[in-house]
Structures are given as C-alpha cells and as structure tokens.
C-alpha cells in the first residue's frame, strides 16, 4: 500500500466531479505514477513516489483538466448579473424603505415579501435582499445560458443627455403662473406664521379657528408647505433645464413627506366638528394626494424608461 499515492489519488477523486469513469481515471493515474517511479527512480519507494506526484501536479488542477468547461453563466451575460442585480436591488431597497416608513409588510408576487420591520431589523434585512437579488438574477442568467439560444438581453441606456436637457426649458410664458404661485406660497407662509395653521374652519381672519389641534396644526401645515415648496422649486428649476428626472425626484420627496405624515400619527388631530367626521375626510384627502403623486411618479418613470430604451 502506497500511502502517499493513495492520499494523492483520493484528493484528485474528491475534486473530480464527473458522472462516470472516475475509478478508471484514478486507476490510470495510479498506474502511470507507479510506472514512472519505477522507470525513472528504479523503485516505488515513498520518496520516489513523492517526486513523481509532485511533478504530476496539484490534485485540484489535475482533476479540473477532466472536467469540460461547462459555463454557468456565459461570458456575454456576466455584465448583466451586476446590472440587473442593481436594478432589482434598487427596487427592493426602495420597497423596504417604503415598508419601514409606512410600517407595513409588502408582497410583490412572486418575488418579494417584505415583512413589517423596525429600523434595526431592516438593517440586517438589506444585506439579505442583496444576496437574494444576486441569486435571483444568477438563476435567470443560468437558465438563459443553458438554453444556448442567442438571446439579446435588454439594457436601457441610462445616459443622461445634458445638452438635450439644457436645451429643453420651460417656456417664458409660464413665468406668470410661477409668480402667482410664489405669491400664493408667500401668503401661505404669512398665514402660518400669523395663525400657526393652514387648516381653517372658517375664513374669518378676525377670529380664526383651526380644524386641527395646535400640535397637528403645526406639523400638518409644515408638511403642506414642504409639499408645495418642493413643487414650486421643481417648477423653478425647469426654467433652466427640463427633465423627467426632476419630476421623479420631486415625487419621491413628496411621497417621503406623505409617508412621514402617515407614519407619525398624531392622536385625535381634529377638533370637534358637528357635521361630519373630519378624521375620515382627512385620511381620504391624504390618500388621494398620495395616489395622485404616485401616478405622476409612475408617469415620469415610464417616460424615462421609454426614452432610455429608445436611445
């Protein structure tokens, strides 16, 4: 029994991932090494075998030479692993943030399930979704590779054409609505500073009554000012350069503000009102505003996606 030789062959066998003929391969290598030791060193002693084994090569490399070069992901698809993972991860990450912000769970059938989490849990959840997304894209690319078809994977060109953006500006005729907006916004700020609310029960400025309690008045008014302020800022930017990206960014910021409003509920924000339930009406108004912004957001996303694919 040649201990070192058998150990060496065992190692080769370990790395030899083939369906059949493994034993025969090992027998052939054994026969070769023994004969070489005998012919070139005159004996099959352990030291002679050691030299022959060393010359034969590293067990893993020896084994790999028998394994056909089976591609898991074709080289031409490799770059898509990172690209597609980046897109899915961005989406997944965004949904996780939204789930955290709105304190809810989310299901995007059949791929994602985002549980209801606190901030700490979501910190450990984010690396997990990255691993999941790489795996998901990897599996898809694996099947695409194995299909051996000439599939052209789509990839939009997300190149921002700055010249085109700079060339497209808001027409000067929009200056008048813009000035009116600024005046209106100024008035709202003045009203807030003067009455500490923007939600009036009646327009009697001598004796203003708020629909909300003082704490709710403050926060909801500031939220409204922020929503409108972002809109006006985006409008102003468009006088210099127009791009759907500006709309998209504006919508994201506005949705975040609405998310914060929903996420930080104030107990009994409304004052007593005799005619109808203000709380329900308030919830409906917030929901409608959120949906309108979300629609605008999707519209911008579609326009960007379409032009990126068309380039």
């Amino acid at each position, binding site marked *: 029994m040649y201990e070192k030789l058998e150990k060496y062959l065992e190692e080769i066998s370990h790395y030899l991932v083939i369906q059949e003929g493994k034993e025969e*391969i090992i*027998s052939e290598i054994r*026969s*070769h090494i023994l*004969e070489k030791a005998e012919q070139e060193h005159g004996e099959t002693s352990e030291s002679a075998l050691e030299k022959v084994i060393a*010359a034969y090569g590293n067990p893993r490399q*020896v084994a790999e*030479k*028998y394994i056909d070069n089976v591609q898991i992901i074709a080289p031409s698809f490799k770059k898509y692993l990172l690209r597609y993972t980046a897109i899915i991860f961005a989406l997944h990450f965004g949904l996780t943030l939204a789930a955290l912000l709105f304190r809810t769970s989310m299901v995007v059938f059949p791929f994602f399930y985002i549980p209801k989490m606190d901030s700490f849990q979501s910190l450990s959840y984010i690396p997990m979704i990255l691993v999941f997304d790489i795996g998901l894209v990897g599996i898809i690319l694996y099947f695409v590779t194995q299909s051996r078809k000439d599939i052209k994977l789509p990839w939009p060109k997300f190149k921002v054409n700055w010249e085109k953006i700079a060339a497209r500006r808001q027409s000067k005729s929009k200056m008048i609505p813009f000035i009116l907006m600024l005046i209106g916004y100024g008035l709202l700020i003045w009203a807030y500073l003067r009455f500490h609310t923007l939600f009036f029960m009646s327009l009697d400025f001598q004796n203003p009554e708020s629909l909300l309690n003082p704490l709710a008045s403050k926060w909801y008014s500031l939220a409204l000012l922020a929503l409108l302020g972002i809109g006006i800022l985006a409008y102003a930017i468009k006088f210099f350069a127009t791009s759907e990206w500006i709309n998209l960014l504006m919508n994201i910021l506005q949705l975040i503000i609405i998310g914060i409003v929903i996420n930080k509920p104030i107990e009994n924000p409304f004052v007593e009102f005799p005619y109808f339930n203000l709380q329900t009406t308030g919830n409906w108004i917030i929901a409608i505003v959120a949906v309108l912004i979300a629609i605008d957001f999707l519209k911008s996303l579609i326009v960007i996606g379409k032009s990126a694919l068309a380039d």
Partner: protein
Amino acid sequence: MKTDISSFETEMNRGFLQVLVLVLLERDMYGYSMVKLLEKKDYALEENTLYPLLRRLENKDLVKSKWDVSKDRPRKFYVITEEGRTVRSQLLKIWQKQIEILNYLLKEFKNV
C-alpha cells in the same frame, strides 16, 4: 515587461496535441509510453494533460482503449479508430494549409 509565453504555448498546444496523439495512436500505446517516446525527441508532453485528452478523444469515438492486465502492472492501451483516422486526415489537411500560409507569409515578410 517580459511577456510570459507559457499561456500562448498552452493555447497553441491545444489543437496540436490532438493531432499528435491521433498520429501516435496508429499503433497501440499507453500513456507513459507516449510520454517517453516524445521525450526522446525532446518534446515534453505534460502527463496530466495527456490523459484528459485521451479521455475526450475516446468519448468522441476517435480512439478506443483496452486494459492490459497480463503484466504485473495493469496498463491502459489506446489505439485510433476508423472515425479517428478520418478526423485525423482532415486535421492534417488543415495543419498543412496552416503551415503553407505561414511559410508563404514568412517568405513574404522577411523581417519577421
């Protein structure tokens, strides 16, 4: 920076070794005997490359093998098949063509 020639050599050898083995196996031979024969002609054939190559050729029915257990040590002998001969003659034609074009170009561009 000096370019490492070994990777280029490996690339060149890949096709060449197939032809070489198909020529060698006109008569029954086993792995070690093939290595030794070539060694006499100062050509080093890597043993750990030879056996996987023989296995691939056998899987494609270009060579066939038989274990000889009559001696004290079993040896696996290989020999070319009819299919192997057909492929070999085609490969040799390609090789001849390659030699011709290379010789022509070397003559044409003498400073190479």
